[in-house]
């Protein structure tokens, strides 16, 4: 109890004297805030990218690719294979008895980024009428669904924000053909929001693919039906396809980019943190120096060395905590939800939003506190060991 009283008294004295060292303390707070800000911006980028891809996956939807293909773009599936798949077990069937599935063609086309004015790769997906039913969370936010057999396209909401020329009612030219945007769809920020959708036979015709598609999506009766589907494909020599659940497919697509962003973010942040740490140590040593008389006076009064130690540490932690929270707040205000895009593994742009999750905020604040802890520890030791005679120092 008495030691607690002492600690509280010393902490109060330290924190109340902060305004005397306002600029120096502020520089520590800012330094920590910037370190945390940089780290969180990178991590929010990685998290946003991952969320976009993970948010895309459903365990109840299976995706079939040619065996050996990791991406849709280099897979091929023939019409005959598609017909065989429709007979597979474990597929949800519509009232008329046909399989709920969608054979799709995925081609890469150019679009101009609004921000840079530069051409970038975006996916044009040829789909059938059941494509929306195979995607959880699909909603048309504007306009209507495309008409089969027409040059109509519907576009993902994220894509229209990032690329010019695909607003509702606009008529973009792709491959010498004029298309008309008749609808905008949303899908909870998933990868599909970075796509253009058109009628499958129209796309096959334009790109001279005959009846070839690249993927078949189908709705499983349950996640456990995936193994049966793979078994069916393995036992049919004409198929040789690989069945993924959509969830595992997209989770596999994200790891490389996410790791790259994290590998860039952490070393940079740690290098910056060392710089900030030097600043924090500097601030805290000055703090101890400027309070040496107060500390020594308290020791004369009978206060122990431990409260002086804790008091300094608390001051340092308080400064870095403020910095950490400030950095988090700035990233949250400026960058959370900030939309950007990068080249995904399918060789097309994936539009994603930076996402500052609570878990990331905790990482940022922990980094700040580590800086505060180390930055306060050594000065705190000095505070505790300060010769008491210093109280007499002229001043």
């Amino acid at each position: 109890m008495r030691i607690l009283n002492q600690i509280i008294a010393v902490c109060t004295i330290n924190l109340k004297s902060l305004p005397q060292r306002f600029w120096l303390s502020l520089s520590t707070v800012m330094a920590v805030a910037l370190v945390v800000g940089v780290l969180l911006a990178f991590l929010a980028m990685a998290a946003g990218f991952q969320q976009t891809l993970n948010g895309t996956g459903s365990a109840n939807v299976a995706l079939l690719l040619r065996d050996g293909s990791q991406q849709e773009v280099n897979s091929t599936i023939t019409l005959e294979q598609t017909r065989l798949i429709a007979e597979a077990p474990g597929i949800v069937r519509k009232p008329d008895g046909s399989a709920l599935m969608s054979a799709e063609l995925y081609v890469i086309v150019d679009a101009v980024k609004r921000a840079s004015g530069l051409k970038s790769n975006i996916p044009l997906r040829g789909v059938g009428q059941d494509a929306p039913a195979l995607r959880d969370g699909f909603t048309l936010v504007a306009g209507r669904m495309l008409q089969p057999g027409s040059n109509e396209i519907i576009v993902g909401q994220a894509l229209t924000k990032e690329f010019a020329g695909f607003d509702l009612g606009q008529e973009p030219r792709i491959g010498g053909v004029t298309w008309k945007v008749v609808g905008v769809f949303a899908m909870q920020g998933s990868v599909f929001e970075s796509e253009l959708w058109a009628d499958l036979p129209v796309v096959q015709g334009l790109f001279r693919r005959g009846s070839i598609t690249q993927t078949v999506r189908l709705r499983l009766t349950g996640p456990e039906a995936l193994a049966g589907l793979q078994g069916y494909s393995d036992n049919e020599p004409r198929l040789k396809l690989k069945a993924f659940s959509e969830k595992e497919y997209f989770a596999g697509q994200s790891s490389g980019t996410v790791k790259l962003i994290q590998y860039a973010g952490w070393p940079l942040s740690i290098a910056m943190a060392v710089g900030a740490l030097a600043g924090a140590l500097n601030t805290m040593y000055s703090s101890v120096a400027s309070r040496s008389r107060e500390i020594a006076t308290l020791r004369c009064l009978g206060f122990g060395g431990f409260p002086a130690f804790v008091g300094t540490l608390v001051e340092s932690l308080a400064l870095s905590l403020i910095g950490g929270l400030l950095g988090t707040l700035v990233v949250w205000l400026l960058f959370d939800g900030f939309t950007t895009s990068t080249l995904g593994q399918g060789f097309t742009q994936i539009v994603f939003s930076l996402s500052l999750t609570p878990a990331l905020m905790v990482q940022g604040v922990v980094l700040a506190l580590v800086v505060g802890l180390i930055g306060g520890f050594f000065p705190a030791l000095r505070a505790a060991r300060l010769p008491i005679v210093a109280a007499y120092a002229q001043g």
Partner: protein
Amino acid sequence: MNDFSIVLANLFRAKLRTSLMLVAIFFAFLIFGVLAGVQNGWDNIGNSGADNRLVTTNKINFTQPLPISYIDRIRAVEGVEKVTYANWFGGFYQEPRNVLVTFAVEPETYLDIYRSDFALTPAAEAAFLADRTAMVAGAKLAEKNGWKVGDKIPLNSNIYTNKATGKRVWDFTLVGLLEPVKEEANPNFVLFHHKYFNESVTFGQNTAGYALLRTVDKSVNAAVAEKIDAMFANSPAETATDTEKAFNKAFASQLGNITLIILLVVGSAFFTILMIVGNTMVMAVRERTREIGVMKTLGFRDARIFRLVLGESLLLALLGGLPALGLAAVMLGMIRQLVALPGLELSPPYLALGLLFMLALGLITGLIPAWKALRLNIVTALGRQ
């Protein structure tokens, strides 16, 4: 004793404080140095292209092919000196993660157009042209995969099946190693015969992935590009022709706004040390008020006092910054071994920028305390407890 020794003595009187500031400055300039190198590599992606080289792709997107018949029609365009073409093979070696940049090319024209960038020995070139199942690879790439000239290399394609075997493993004989001619060239890829490709694939025959052409002079670039694109307008495969530089830059920019990210990080790092060093210098000079008063009493002029304080902050910035740029150069050299991006180095303009930043840091952080020292009144300075 001269002024410099006074500056040194002042700087290292508080050894701990000075060391901490040096550490902060060191890390800020280390970040600057490494990221400036990355930026330089990034800038270089576009610049490695020659001025008079153009790329013609399918207008829909460069991943869409062109009919091979287009090549001869492009060759006939006035102002075009040489045309070659290449198809993306989707190659990987042994496992899908080990992706190899692999192109099926028309060998004579391809090697000719890039002769100023990279080349084979004459013997290797002859061997390559003679054998349609031969391949050549960048020397570093071959070394990394443990290949030697004469080896049979099975390359996988994630796109194409070889008609002859029914498998997506294609066998090639490595007959030569591509060595860079220009320092910034980086032949980090595999080339093989388009003829062999064309007769063996199960689909996509008689297509060229893209056409690469050399004009007679860069002044005709725009006219040539316009002529080619006009020639194929309203055909099933319209084209888009651009300089190789612009094409490379646009492709690189698809990764994201790397420059903006670098700018934000470097800006944050510098703002941090500006705050830390600036405040510490103000504090350090304030502690010395009495001494400065004494120096003025001894007859030191105001301007000299000003220079002494400013010299101290400049020295601090240089002592922290210069070794950091040195280490950054070493680190960039190590990274260059790993990722083989030729421009990954501290180029003179960025080096100069780094030095400029050091001077700016020294001046900005020293200015306020130096001004305060200059304005210091002797009586108050000495009277102050």
